[in-house]
Structures are given as C-alpha cells and as structure tokens.
C-alpha cells in the first residue's frame, strides 16, 4: 500500500522517464535519420516535463498577477522552457536540412545504406 501511494505520487515522473527512455531508444536503435530526429524531439519534450512538473502547485493559478489570487505556480521554469522550445525547433530545422543534404549525396536517409555506400565512395 505504501509502495502504491509512492507510485501514485510519482506517476508524472515515471511517465516522463518513459518518454525520455523511448526517445533514447529511437535515437540509438533506428536507422532512419528523420525518425532519429523525432526521437530526439521525444527526449527534449520529456526534459520540458521534468522542469514543469515541480513548478506546479495544486490549487495555484498560472503566474499572471491578479488581486483575486495569491498562490501562483513557479514562473522561472516556464521562462527557461519557453527558451528551450524555440531553440529545440531551431535544432530540428538544422537537422532536417542536413538530412536533406545527406539524401542528396547518398540517395537514402537510412544509416545502414549510407555506411554501405561510404565504402564505395
């Protein structure tokens, strides 16, 4: 029962870790470059969750000042993650541009085929 209680309280963290590990698995195990970048995106979003989950106060409101409320969630992680999301999409765009160039040079975006062709060239 004690264990179940701990599990319920930390469910957010467990799902976050599952998302992170799934992203890691996709990046390592899959050969398709676009899929790898999507895996990297999974990993990134799980990091956003790690930051935002502790910032929440149950019964609090979003950090917008109003006389009717006194308890606000922590605004600092929100600011950091706002920056991280925008930098993340910049990274994704750069990675996809590289993928397009790789496809042009090798005619494929599969890692195995690229390694096979690299020996020929």
């Amino acid at each position, binding site marked *: 029962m004690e264990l179940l209680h*701990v599990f319920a309280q930390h*469910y*957010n963290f467990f*799902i*976050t*870790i*599952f*998302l*992170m*590990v*799934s992203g*890691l698995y996709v990046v*390592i*195990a*899959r*050969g*398709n*470059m*676009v*899929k790898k970048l*999507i895996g990297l*995106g*999974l990993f990134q*979003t799980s990091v*956003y969750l790690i930051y*935002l*989950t*502790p*910032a*929440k*106060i*149950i019964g*609090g*409101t979003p*950090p917008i*000042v109003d006389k009717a409320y006194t308890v*606000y*969630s922590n*605004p*600092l992680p*929100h*600011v950091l*993650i706002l*920056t991280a*999301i*925008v930098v993340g*999409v*910049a*990274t*994704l*765009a*750069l990675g*996809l*541009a590289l*993928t*397009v*160039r790789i*496809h042009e040079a090798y005619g494929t975006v*599969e890692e*195995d085929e690229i390694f096979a062709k690299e020996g020929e060239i």
Partner: protein
Amino acid sequence: METFVITVLLTLLAIVTVAIIRQRNMYSVVILSSVYSFLMASVMLVLDAVDVAMTEASVGAGISTVILLATLYLTGTREYPTARGTGIPLFVSVVVGAALVWGTFELPAFGLADTVIHKHTAPLYIEMSQKHQMPPNIVTAVLADFRSFDTMGEVTVIFTAGIGVLMLLSGRRRRDEVEVVKVTESVETFGDDVADENEPDGPNGSAA
C-alpha cells in the same frame, strides 16, 4: 481533479509514444508526433504553464510538423528495419530508465507548495515584478525584463540556425542547376544524334 486530468493525459502521451516507435510509415509518425505535441501542450496547460503550452502548440505541433512533412517530401516516407539487433539499445534504455526511476524516489510528491524550488527565487520574482510595475504576466516580465539578455542570446541561436539552414539548402539549389545543365546538354547531344540519323534518311525521303 488536476491530478486526475494530468494522469489521463500522461497515459495518452505514453500510448502515442509507443505508436510512434512501432510505426514504420514516416507520414504516420509525423502526424503522431503532431498529436503528441498537442497532448504535451494540454499537459502544460494543466501544469499552469500557459505561455509554454501556447508555444508548444504553435511551434511543436505547427512549425515542426510542417518542416518534417517538407523533409518527407524530399526524402521519402518509408522507414526500413535495420540490420542491427535491438538488444543493446533496449538494454541501454532500460538501465538508464531504472537509474532515473531510482533517482525519483527522493523527489517531493507532485503539486506540493512547500518544496525547495518554490521558496527562493520564485517569490522574489513575483514580488519584484509587481513592485516595479512590470507586465502582470510574470513569465513575460522575467523573459523580457529580468532576463532580457538571455532572450537576446536565444535570438542569436535562432539566427545562427537560420543561416545554417539557408546555407545547406542554397548549396542544394546550385547542385540542382548543375543537374539541369547536364540534362540540357544530354538532350542537345541526343538531338544531334537524332539529326545525324535523320540526315541519311532525309535525301532518301525526299527522293521517294
């Protein structure tokens, strides 16, 4: 209530993640990652991060999906299974996951107000933004007033990434032009060949 909503949303996120991993059609994967971003935006909304939720919905589900679809148009939509086994990646993932789960046991439970991160800088930011007549949205106040140099650095990063993408893709256009020139040359030589072949026939044809 908030805990219940967030539990349901996170479970949906985990299901969508499994679908993303298993799906081999890249078009489906991109659409699923769009669904994932919208679910993530909903989670952020429940976590009181309204600004982050808006950004995630517009950037994660909007722009990312568009550029991923554009890439699929240029590279193809099928993912092929790799020759390598999935044993080592699975092992690495499970070990990393187990270590992280072990690390969470000492963390405070979800949604408590008296944890460490709510006690030091956050009350100061809230208090000072009201004292100095900053925007009522504290996230905006921190982003644009307290940490505006940070935001300038972020703009620099986006600018650099934009230059990188432009350079990579403009090299591509030049290569296309070269290919077009080659194709035109081959068409011309082909035309010459046809003309050469026609010449002997020409007089015969006219004689007939």
